[in-house]
C-alpha cells in the first residue's frame, strides 16, 4: 500500500489529457475526468494508505472494498 496522495497522482498519470495534434488532422483534449473505483484502504495516523484492488478473484478472506470517486480537471497554458 502507498499513501493515498500517490494513488491520486498515479491515477492522474494514467488518464491521457490529450491525444492527436493539429499535424495529424485532429486533436482531442480532455477537460475533466471522473473516476469511480474500488479501493483497498487502511486508516493510519498519516491518513489513508491505499491501493487499487490487485486481483479479480476473491479469496473469501478479503476486506470489504472501499470506494473512491475523483474528478480531475485539466489545467494548463493551452
Amino acid at each position, binding site marked *: 500500500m502507498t*499513501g*493515498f*496522495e*500517490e494513488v*491520486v*497522482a498515479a491515477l*492522474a498519470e494514467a*488518464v491521457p*489529457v*490529450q491525444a492527436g495534434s493539429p499535424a495529424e488532422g485532429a486533436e482531442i*483534449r480532455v477537460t*475533466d*475526468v471522473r473516476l469511480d473505483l474500488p*479501493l*483497498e*484502504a*487502511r*486508516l*493510519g*495516523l*498519516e*491518513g*489513508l*494508505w491505499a491501493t487499487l484492488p490487485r486481483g479479480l478473484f476473491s479469496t*473469501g*478472506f*478479503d*476486506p*470489504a472494498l*472501499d*470506494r*473512491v*470517486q*475523483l*474528478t*480531475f*480537471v*485539466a*489545467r*494548463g*497554458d*493551452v
Partner: protein
Amino acid sequence: MTTGRAMPVEDFVQAFTAQLDRAQDLLALKARTGRPLTFALRDLAVDLHVFWEPDANGRMLMRHAGPNEQGASTLHFTFTTITKSMVEENTLALTGDDDPRGLDDLNAAQHIDAGARKKLEWAGIRTVGQLKRLSHGADPKSVQSFLGIPVLQLETLLQQAAQPHISGHEVIPGGMGVPVVRIRGANLAQGASAPEVRFSGEPVEVLEARANEILVRPMSHHSEGPMEVLVGGKRAAGFYRLPAGPEAPAASASKKNGPAEGGSP
C-alpha cells in the same frame, strides 16, 4: 491485511486533507516539468467501511473494517477544492476574539463536570470570548435548554468570565523617550468610565483603555512591583517589570508576563 488502529474522525480528516494537499502538489509539479496541460484534482469522495468504538472518554473512534468483518458502517467523505479566501472566510479569526483565554483559565471551569465541558466543546466554545458571545443577552436558562449545561455551572463560569483579568504586559516606546506600558487582559474597561491603574500602589496615567488592553504611562521611578487595575468596583492584579535604563526599549524587546508575572482577579 491489518485494519489499522482506531482513530477520531477529526484526526483522520486532518491527515487526509494534508494528503490531498500533497496530491495537488504532486500534480502541480508535473506542470512545472514543461507539460502544457495537466490535471488538477477538483472533487473527491471516498467511502470507507468502518466500525465505531468509544474510547475511555466517550469519544467515538473509527476503525477500518477487517477481512470478513460483517456489518460495517459506510462512511462517505466528500472533499472539494476551495480557495484561500474561502478558507479565511470560514476560519475563526484568532485575533478577533475579544477574550481569547481558554475556558480552563477560569478557575470555575475546574468545577464544571465532564459532560458539560463536552457539550461546550461540541458547541464550538473554546474561549471565554466565545462563551460570552453565546450568553450575551440570553437567559442562562435558555442556554441550559439548548446546550443542556446546568444553569448554576453556567452562571458561575459567566461571573468569573466577567471579572477583570491581566494576562500580561509589554513596554512600548512612547513620545519623548518616555515608555508606555501596554497591559493586556480581559474586561479591563467598562463603558465610558476609565479604569484606575496602580503601579506599586500609586495611580498612573491611563492613556487609552479598551476591554482587552490599557495603555498607561508609568512614573520614572517605577521599575517593578505589583500592578492593579480597578474597573467597575472589581480588581485585577499582576506584577510589572520595566527594563532599566533611560531609554524605552523597542516594542520587539517587550516583556510579556509569564505565570509568575501574570495577573488574576
